[in-house]
């Protein structure tokens, strides 16, 4: 053997022995590029950006301006996020308990009605609530007092209600998995319903509730829709709306924008830590225990359960049914008409015009097409990425699995606006690889944003794949790719369908990343809806809202059906 051949063989042997470290290292590097780097970049640039320049001299002036210049904005941000999370959690705990833990009638219908809210596009949702709680809003016409939507509590109300479906997705399984025998034991020892809830059910579900609260909190911290639509007209600024103005409006104030982006991350990081901890505790307190496990509902009296169902039904009418009716009503009106005019006889004739003009609205068509394409690509990449990372963490011998697990979760702490800011610097200055100003930067940001929550849903399915199946694959000589393709994917297909449908629905009308990174020549749906609202074109906005909602409902049902036919 020649010396060259010897060294080559040695190198090959070393590479082979180090393969887990090399692969693990590459994955860590890839994840760092889209998670750690935006985070660090946002922080570092906050000391260097000045006006329209991203890289000026080092200065702490931006931070001093933020802390002493607009503490009210920081306070508004925290009040808005905490208020929204508290409202969502309070409502969803009540609804989840009722649907998952009791024999309340129509529970499934109530759940689907609430879940349907997730399909209503942003901006349309806020525009509808302005119609409900504006000075001449329908609810204000019914209420004995005036509820001003253009206020901090109005913002909290609208955001808190909109986050309900997401919170329910997290909480209903938590409540459903509580072992009923413990509650029965409590009642057998004389505890009433309320005492049983307080002393048995709540402690069991508390980590899940905390996880749900923290998830809503961190999402609300980075929310841009409500602050733009409801906050700005009332001159109420939160950090995301201030970032939006500083980053896309002249005079550009990148210094302030990056400080605010960093502040959002600093607020989100402890939430991220506690969220992960709460998720761990959820698993620790799981009570599934073989044959003794019982999920029988809490039996309420006939009167009690119908009363409870009525309360939930009424709540649903207020937060879902009426807003949807107002949206539909708006979409058939020739111009903006108060909803209550339907009952006063002064209503103009209905018209199909808001729908028919959509056929000629080329910008709307382009926006829908671009958003469809971006959401589809991002959904596919997110699903593949999530399954791959779950498999790496739980089913492979690759090195640095704990680091990979942690890093793949980190984007939760990167609020959408902070992530978008980080991406601007990374792909404009650090790695100018030509994706800034194209749809690809948006797809990448979508994937980064979606990865953590998708992994959370996909992981249990990957975990349940027994090692013996993978070992059988190894025995039969299948390589890793074949094992993933022929063993892992068929077993997780139904989860992939469910999470894929949901992810697509969310990304199809995503706003903050789209608004901050959208190239001028590639309109996207959510920013276009924002344009329509600015123009005051409410009938067309409502018509698009109806069409998009219907499309997403149908798409979700179709994707789910595809999943069930595969299962059979």
């Amino acid at each position, binding site marked *: 053997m020649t010396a060259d051949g010897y060294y080559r063989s040695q190198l090959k042997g070393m590479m082979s022995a180090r393969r887990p470290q090399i692969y693990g290292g590459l994955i860590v590097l890839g994840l760092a590029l889209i998670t750690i780097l935006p985070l660090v970049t946002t922080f570092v640039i906050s000391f260097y950006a000045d006006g329209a320049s991203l890289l000026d001299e080092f200065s702490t002036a931006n931070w001093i301006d933020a802390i002493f210049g607009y503490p009210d904005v920081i306070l508004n941000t925290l009040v808005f996020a905490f208020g929204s999370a508290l409202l969502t959690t309070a409502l969803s705990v009540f609804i989840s308990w009722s649907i998952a833990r009791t024999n309340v009638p129509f529970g499934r219908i109530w759940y689907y009605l609430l879940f349907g809210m997730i399909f209503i596009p942003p901006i349309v949702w806020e525009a509808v609530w302005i119609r409900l709680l504006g000075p001449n809003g329908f609810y204000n016409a019914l209420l004995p007092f005036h509820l001003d939507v253009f206020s901090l509590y109005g913002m909290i109300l609208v955001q808190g209600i909109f986050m309900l479906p997401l919170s329910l997705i997290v909480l209903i399984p938590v409540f459903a998995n509580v072992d009923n025998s413990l509650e029965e034991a409590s009642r057998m020892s004389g505890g009433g319903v309320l005492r049983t809830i307080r002393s048995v059910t709540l402690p069991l579900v508390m980590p899940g509730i905390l996880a749900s609260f923290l998830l809503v909190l961190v999402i609300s911290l980075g929310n841009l829709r409500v602050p733009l639509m409801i906050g700005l007209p009332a001159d109420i600024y939160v950090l995301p709306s201030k970032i939006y103005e500083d980053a896309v409006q002249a005079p550009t104030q990148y210094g302030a924008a990056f400080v605010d982006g960093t502040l959002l991350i600093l607020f989100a990081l402890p939430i991220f830590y506690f969220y992960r901890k709460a998720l761990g505790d959820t698993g620790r307190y799981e009570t599934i225990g073989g044959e003794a496990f019982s999920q029988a509902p809490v039996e309420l009296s006939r009167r009690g359960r119908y009363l409870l169902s009525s309360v939930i039904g009424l709540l649903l009418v207020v937060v879902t049914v009426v807003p949807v009716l107002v949206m539909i009503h708006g979409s058939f009106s020739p111009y903006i008409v108060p909803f209550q005019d339907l009952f006063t006889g002064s209503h103009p004739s209905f018209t199909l015009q808001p729908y028919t003009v959509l056929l000629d609205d*080329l910008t709307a068509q382009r926006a829908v097409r671009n958003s469809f394409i971006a959401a589809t690509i991002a959904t596919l990449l997110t699903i593949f990425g999530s399954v791959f990372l779950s498999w790496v963490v739980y089913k492979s011998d690759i090195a640095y699995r704990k680091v990979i697990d942690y890093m793949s979760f980190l984007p939760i702490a990167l609020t959408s606006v902070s992530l978008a800011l980080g991406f601007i610097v990374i792909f404009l200055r650090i790695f100018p690889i030509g994706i800034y100003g194209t749809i690809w930067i948006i797809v990448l940001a979508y994937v980064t944003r979606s990865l953590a929550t998708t992994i959370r849903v996909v992981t249990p399915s990957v975990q349940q794949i027994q090692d013996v199946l993978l070992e059988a694959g190894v025995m039969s000589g299948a390589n890793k790719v074949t094992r993933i393709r022929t063993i892992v994917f068929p077993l997780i297909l139904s989860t992939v369908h469910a999470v894929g449908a949901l992810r697509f629905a969310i990304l199809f009308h995503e706003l903050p990343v789209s608004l901050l990174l959208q190239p001028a*020549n590639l309109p996207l749906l959510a920013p276009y809806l924002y344009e329509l609202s600015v*123009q005051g074109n409410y009938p067309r906005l409502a018509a698009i809202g109806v069409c998009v909602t219907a499309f997403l409902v149908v798409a979700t049902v179709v994707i789910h059906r595809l999943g069930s036919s595969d299962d059979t």
Partner: protein
Amino acid sequence: MTDDRTRGCSYRCGETTRRSVLGATGGLSAAALTGLAGCLGNGEEESEELTVYTNIPFEEIADGYEEETGVGVNYVTLQGQEPITRYVAEADQEQYDVDAICCNSTGMWQLFEDDIPATLDLSDEQIDRQFSLSGMAETYQDRLGDDVLQRAPPILLQIGAFHYHTESVSDPPTSYLDLLDDRWEGETCTQPFTMMYVLQALEEHLGTEEAEEYILDYHDLDPQYIGGGGSNVQSVLGGDNDLAKYIWGFYSSQEISDGAPIDLTFVDELSFSTQVMIRPENAPNPEAAEEFIEWTISESGQEIVQSLAGGSIPAREGMEYGHDHVQQRWEEWQDAHPDTDPFPTVQSPESAQEYADRIDELIGL
């Protein structure tokens, strides 16, 4: 042998179904990704499309131009001065995706300050036709330099008006001063950025002290500041406010045609601005952009501008509002003020900064 074949078949059959499904899914996904990526590329077919930032309804103009020339116009409708501020912010980062900016003349000084508008090849005749109102060209040149006429041709006149709900307002106000009555407390809305132009117009009519006092008094009456002219009109129609102040005349044309309970009056202290077309120096399709701008000031382009949003008034000499009722209101104002020329609100960088600072100091906007 038979066993092997059977086993092999069974293995293959079992695998084939699963593989075929997954293979097909994988293949479809790959094909979809490739195909979708192709749709998104800035390929040759995209170069036939112009990108325009605007703050007025632009659908008719885009459709009209595409119909006449086959060139698509991708427009992004922003609010207030956003077409200008966003372009300046993007130019700061050397991002040049926009071929033309359709913006209000009141804020275009920001583009001139950064030397963004390109010089167009317009004839004197074209310029004279577009700067049609008395003293208009001179004021523009005085504020932004002699070459402004070649760099920012107006396509549309923006004449400030009060838009009011006909069921709530029986005796519509005709002067800014009328709005200081308690009857209007919490019942009016306006665009925040227009307050500096109101200050400028009132200074012309009342003098500095009274104008500033007016701004303070009006602000005390708790008006709602809403971005976007259309949003202000919709706020009136939705019953949230009785009157929208200083909104361009054409914003309720379509609604009036649709029978909505809304009307307008042009105010005594009348001021106007224009909607101008600007080609940025770094437009990605400069020739196509220039052709487009020239078309917007041509006869056919101006006729389409006239139909904008249900009927507006083009800048071209001798053209009227494309809406009979709004034109009637405009003629009523002209009859009532036979010796008055509307005051042009166009800013130089210095005066814009000065007025912005004063408004900020007075009412924090």
